[in-house]
């Protein structure tokens, strides 16, 4: 059907997976291997090279070796997160990180082994791999599943809900042709990753997309869930990465590979002064610079030429521009220390506990909607193997729920509202051929500037306070209105308008969360200058639900049980008021 130049396609499947990244691919593989259910993966790019794994990864950062247990992993993650963590979620994924690693090896991933055939580990929770082709390997296994269909280059924008709020599908469009999609499904899994590009980046000029987190993971899943009324958790626990300056390449490979400590400009090792958790490492770097003792470096000068050659190769497998930078400048890490810096803040549930509030089976608070990977909250430090494990857990829950519903005789798609096609009307409006003096890029830069200046970006050394946050909220709201007036000449431009819309929604939610946690629990990630210290009254999850254009904030008690379901919940009194 073609209306106003926009062709409409309607598709149906048992399961719709939004985002064919790490978690999404593995969920599809799990369902494909274990059932005959039809699965559609809707991916905005191409699953062979999309999301976090596009360039390759350096190591598998979550693997239990030397007799360590899931409980050990939980304690490590709890310490790093200063207790804001869900025991049930972390334990359930930690229980699976080793089996998914073995599966990756069967799929062809090269993992370093010793003479006895054991994986060579870096510390007790990290295995060394050649991770350059990890995404093509996953995509290949997806293509082996008979009942899994992949829709590449389809960007999903909105969830489809029935009258009672149940999620029964989604809407999206092709980023290449003027085709819009309505997809109906009995279960929908959000696996679209976290959100980058909310804040002004380290390199705001020509290299504006040289950021750590994929600039194409724009928080779409969060935004759709928020607008549909799903409960979100701990967005205020932002993630900032410690990176090689300019190239934003990982530092762990150098720090752990050649044991290079963090030093300031006078060569003093400062890392021990501030502590060794992820935020403390960045905090130390920021503090040294603030006190005039920067720039800061990883002390690599003096490593052997052989070690340097290994670093060149390791970086080519995950962040090639770092090797290019070394070679181009004529000075490798054996001659010159590597300068380091913190990135702009991101929201990502793979590193901190931000994302959808889910039960142990990864069900969100909306019926029919599930979340896994960086999109799901409550379980920080999940990394590649944790994202795979969550994809698997969500897939198992979906299969179980579909089975239960069938036994109970629920007629699924009938309850799905029929004529609810407002997203298509919006696509047409944006594509109506009109012009508007403000470009999408300008609006995006405006958003990043607001967040940078008033919501704790690089400019303020990640610090924020109430007055600034309120101003940020006001300005982000006005950008939301501006966003409606933008115009696109094709669906590639439409994609950028929708990415901006998603980011603005995530910014608003993030600001509401930053306002609600009136303490400083994590340096850098949540540096609230009105409340500079931790406060035990905030030993709780700060959650939010979006209703009628406003965020309702709630505080939930910490979960220490091995299982959590949405029915047994208790909300702490009094509610968090801003």
């Amino acid at each position: 059907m073609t209306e106003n130049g926009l062709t409409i396609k309607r598709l149906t499947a048992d399961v719709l997976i939004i985002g064919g990244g790490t978690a999404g691919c593995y969920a599809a593989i799990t369902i494909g291997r274990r059932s005959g259910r039809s699965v559609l993966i809707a991916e905005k790019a191409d699953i062979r090279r999309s999301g976090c794994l596009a360039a390759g990864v350096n190591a598998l950062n979550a693997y239990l070796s030397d007799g360590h247990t899931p409980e050990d992993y939980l304690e490590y993650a709890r310490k790093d997160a200063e207790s804001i963590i869900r025991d049930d979620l972390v334990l359930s994924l930690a229980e699976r990180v080793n089996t998914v690693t073995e599966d990756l090896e069967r799929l062809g991933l090269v993992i370093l082994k010793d003479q006895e055939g054991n994986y060579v580990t870096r510390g007790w929770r990290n295995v060394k791999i050649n991770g350059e082709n990890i995404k093509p390997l996953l995509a290949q296994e997806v293509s082996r599943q008979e009942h899994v269909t992949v829709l590449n280059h389809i960007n999903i924008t909105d969830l489809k809900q029935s009258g009672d709020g149940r999620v029964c599908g989604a809407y999206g469009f092709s980023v290449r042709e003027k085709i819009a999609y309505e997809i109906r499904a009995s279960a929908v899994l959000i696996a679209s990753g976290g959100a980058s590009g909310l804040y002004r980046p380290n390199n705001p000029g020509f290299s504006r997309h040289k950021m750590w987190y994929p600039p194409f993971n724009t928080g779409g899943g969060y935004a759709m869930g928020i607008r549909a009324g799903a409960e979100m958790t701990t967005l205020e626990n932002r993630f900032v990465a410690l990176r090689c300056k300019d190239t934003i390449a990982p530092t762990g490979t150098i720090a752990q590979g050649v044991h290079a400590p963090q030093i300031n400009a006078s060569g003093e090792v400062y890392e021990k002064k501030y502590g060794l958790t992820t935020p403390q490492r960045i905090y130390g770097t920021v503090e040294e610079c603030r006190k005039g003792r920067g720039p800061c470096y990883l002390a690599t000068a003096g490593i052997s030429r052989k070690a340097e050659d290994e670093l060149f190769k390791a970086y080519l497998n995950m962040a090639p521009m770092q090797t290019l930078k070394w070679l181009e400048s004529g000075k490798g890490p054996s001659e010159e220390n590597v300068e380091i810096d913190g990135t702009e803040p991101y929201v990502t549930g793979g590193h901190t506990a931000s994302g959808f509030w889910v039960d142990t089976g990864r069900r969100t608070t909306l019926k029919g909607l599930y979340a896994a990977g960086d999109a799901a909250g409550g379980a920080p430090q999940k990394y590649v193997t944790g994202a795979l494990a969550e994809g698997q857990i969500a897939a198992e829950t979906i299969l179980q729920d579909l089975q239960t519903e069938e036994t109970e005789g629920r007629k699924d798609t009938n309850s799905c509202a029929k004529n609810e096609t407002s997203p298509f009307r919006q696509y047409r409006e944006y594509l109506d051929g009109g012009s508007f003096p403000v470009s999408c890029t300008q609006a995006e830069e405006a958003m990043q500037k607001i967040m940078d200046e008033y919501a704790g970006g690089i400019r303020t050394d990640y610090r924020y306070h109430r007055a600034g946050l309120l101003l940020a909220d006001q300005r982000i709201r006005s950008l939301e209105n501006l966003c409606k007036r933008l115009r696109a000449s094709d669906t590639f431009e439409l994609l950028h308008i929708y990415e901006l819309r998603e980011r603005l929604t995530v910014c608003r939610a993030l600001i509401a969360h930053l306002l609600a946690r009136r303490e400083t629990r994590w340096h850098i990630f949540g540096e609230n200058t009105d409340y500079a210290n931790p406060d035990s009254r905030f030993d709780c999850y700060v959650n939010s639900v979006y209703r009628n254009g406003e965020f309702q904030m709630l505080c939930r008690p910490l979960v220490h049980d091995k299982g959590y379901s949405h029915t047994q919940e208790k909300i702490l009194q009094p509610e968090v008021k801003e």
Partner: protein
Amino acid sequence: MSIHINQKKCVGCGRCADACPGSLIWLNSSGKAEIRIPEDCWGCTSCMKECPTAAISLFLGADIGGQGSELSIRREGTVSRWIMHRFDGTEKVISVDSRNANSY
């Protein structure tokens, strides 16, 4: 940082356009690959790894220290040959075999 597509080497197969995680590449009216917004490149090198003719190279923007050198890649079986064309005309090749894990 961004990519540069050598129009003479490009055979218009479209593989890079499929691979880009940002859908940034398209085939222009002469059937050659073109990046629509160079500033939007993430530098992931997915397009370069797909290209059968090594037509695509990566460069660092001047804002992050680039001086005009370019990095390209040629895949030969499991071996990737990364070729650095330095701005001063010299060349350096580093071969990485995907059968070997990183030592770090």
